């Protein structure tokens, strides 16, 4: 599979999706003008990953400083796709990073963990 490596900007996150090296990561800020346009290739990639035989274990890191409401819906979609991978018998872990001063980011992670059947780990970070 090809590697997705998108350099982030002020409005869009860094995205690394690298099956061979087992790197799955979304970090930075997500408030694109058109969320669907930005995330479509990412969703397609995840679909292909799920179909083409995913790794035995996927560790997906979310380290977002900010995401708008529209992005939050997309992140849920991403998680739902990984839930299907879990159902197919592979291991998936979501590592949810949040800044020690931002409880709402932790809460957002907890809400996702409520909705999807994927084990979550919470990693607190500081400046």
């Amino acid at each position, binding site marked *: 599979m090809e590697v997705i490596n998108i350099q982030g900007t002020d409005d869009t996150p860094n995205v690394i999706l690298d099956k061979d090296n087992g790197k799955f990561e979304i970090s930075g800020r997500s408030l694109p003008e058109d969320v669907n346009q930005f995330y479509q290739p990412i969703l397609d990639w995840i679909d292909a990953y799920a179909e083409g035989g995913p790794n035995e274990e996927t560790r997906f890191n979310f380290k977002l400083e900010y995401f708008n409401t529209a992005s939050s819906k997309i992140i849920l979609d991403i998680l*739902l796709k990984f839930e299907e991978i879990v159902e197919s018998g592979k291991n998936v872990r979501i590592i949810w990073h949040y800044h020690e001063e931002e409880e709402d980011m932790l809460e957002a992670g907890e809400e996702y963990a409520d909705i999807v059947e994927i084990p979550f780990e919470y990693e607190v970070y500081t400046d």
Partner: protein
Amino acid sequence: MPAKRISKYIRDYLNFALIKEHEKFFITVFLMVIYLVIWAGFIDFMRLPFSMKTIVKIHTTWLVWLVDFLVACVSLGAVIFINHDRNIKNKQKKELAKLKSQLESNHQVAELIRKGEYNKIMHITDHHSSLLDLAKNLMETNQKEEAVKWITKGKDIINEVLRKYRKIDELSIEIIKAIIQYTDAIQGAFYLLENDKLVSRATYAFNRQRFVKQEFEVGRGLVGQVAYEKAMIYRTEIPDDYFTVTSGLLNDVKPKSLLILPLMQEDELQGVVEVAFLQDHIPSYKLDFAEELSSMIGRTIYAQKINARTEVLLKESQEMTVTLQRNEEKLKENAREMMIAQEELEQSNELLESKIQEVENGQKRMVALLTNASEFISIYNEDQQLVFESPSVKRILGYADDENIVGMDPELMTPKGYKTINKLFEYLKQTPGGESVAQYAYLKKSGEKLFLETKGKNLLHDPAIKGIIFNTQDITERIRAEKEERMKSRMQSLSENSPDMIIRINTTGKLVYANPVVSEFMGLSIQEITKKRINDLHIDERFIEFINNVLKEIKNNEEQIIDELEIAAPEGSKIMQIKAIPEHSEDNVLESILFVAHDMTEIKMIEQEIKEKNKKISDSINYAQRIQTSILPDTSFIQRHFPRSFIFYRPKDVVSGDFPWFVKKDETFYVAAVDCTGHGVPGALLSFIGYFLLNNIVNIDDNFNAAKILDLLHEGVRTTLKQNEEGNNGRDGMDLALCKINKENKTIQYAGAHNPLYLLRKGKLIEYKGSRKGIGGKPLLKKKEKEFENHEIAYEEGDKIFIFSDGLPDQLGGERRRKYQSKRIREALTEREDLSMAHFERHFSSDFYEWMGKEKQVDDVLLIGIEL
């Protein structure tokens, strides 16, 4: 034993042997007469007749016996007295004889001491006397003196040899000869330490020099052992394999003792001397002498070595001089100086020191010349090992004088350069007398690249050089100049082929260069354009004026100017963007100005088009904003019902995805802060859907509680956006906080899709969290959806409620570019108990802008505060 002693005394003192026969007779007669007279007296006294009978008779009285006894005692006493006298005389005689013999022997000893014949003294006498002790002491002192004298004399002899012979070959044989002769040895050898081996330099046996070569490694054999331990060995048992020299006269005589001593200079081993003796014992003073020789000879050898090295250095410098003669005129003079110095040196060994100084000065001069030369010379042997390199290498290659580098260090060359040099070397090795040049790159210490050119010549056959000589110089500057030249010509071709007009005008206003585009544009040939003043050209006046103005301005401030200008061209009017770049000479004086004119006509047209389109879009959005504002409640509208209330509303763009919603039905008030997904136009479109759905829901029935209203809104959004249909990945929806306020029974119903309600009562904050569920979005097949929770809250007069979208807490900013956070809202609300609604309105507005600073606004911001 007293019994024995008594018998001895009796024997000594009752010894009648001393009394002669006739004396004994006289004494016996005399005693008899005495007795008779005494007895006659007694008989007479008793008036008895004198006869035998009476004599017996009177002996019945003890008095007579007593008298008899006394008389006998007198005679015995006499005997005792005589014996005693004799004994004394005998004793005196004996002592006299003893004294006499002592006196005689002392006299003899004294006589021998005077003559210094100590050995005889020992034979003379065996009894002890102080005179004999004195003699012994004197003898030892004498022997020591003899030994010291012997050692001193020996040292003088050896010193003389050391002084006399300067060359190590002569010195070694003479030294060993002198040692052997002086110490009565029979044979010996002299070894020098050369390359960690002891090599015999001279062997001498039975008065003749022998030519035997022997070598020992340090630690091997006796000689090696001495060298290793740096201590003398003295042995009286000679190993069977010990090397001996036959004398021819004495057949194969084996020495009985052996002395091997190291030759030392300070702690440094210089060599070893080995001496063998026929005697099976070597007196200790000879050993002492050997010890003394160790450092004496060691020092001399060391000095000799240094002298020899100096001579080698001299030779080397001579050779170097010859080499350098080929390369530099200046060095020739130096070489001559060295030659002269050389000749003088050979004339006199005594002047060696001063000559060395001279040579050193010469070398220093030469080193200075070599160090500061603009090129460096390297000589390699045929194994490509560096034999010599001139010190200038360091400065040329950008290293300090004390750093250890060589001009062809593979580590500091590029792989390509290394290959080149190897090739050059191979070629030279195969071509005696051949010459060839190569270039290679070298890394300076600073990391800069240096380009070097080296001229190699094979002089392996030249006895003075015996190597391949390389003459290397730094050609970086040359290469740079060449590169610059190439760049210039490239620039030239670049400007020749550029679609822009390029003109160079000097400070007097003369055109010195114009590219083909210029001639095309002006309709003049290049020759017509160049060498003319700008004012003499028949072109658009505006262009001439512009150039003159620019010339003036740049002469003043020497800064680049960019400007746009409309010029008439053959195919119509054109907009040109003209860049005027000041050009300076090497001494930083303004020389000319380069004008680059880029045709912007098309770009300008596109820009114009974009501007127009942009205006249309923003006009359209502004219109949309008027429509959105017209339907939304503002602060004054709420204040009609709740005088102390406010709406803080800051859309990110012109139109907004956040909207306040406020409806009054009878005595029930509905208020909501709604946040639609997205912002700008798509957000605004969603906001209309939300707005009308909410209106519809509360119009249907008054009795819906807050949670029910959210349920209906949720369904409504799904239906409206057809999110229930297959294949629609609708993610659009809203988050909101909704309150239904009943003023009559003073209750609030609150329900939230994600967003909370803050209730402030007497400065205390109560937080009601929203449900973890949003409005809208396609249903998740496998998940049972959460319900919206309904909160019933009884309120008191003066309670303040706050509902808001996430735009405020999510705003990035502050010193550390972090989020504003709900916590900051809560802290502001609870800062003091008596804060008014008006204060909060002012505070949140100003605090938001202050926090945001230069950051972008991330989302629409909406905060509604109502005092009940």
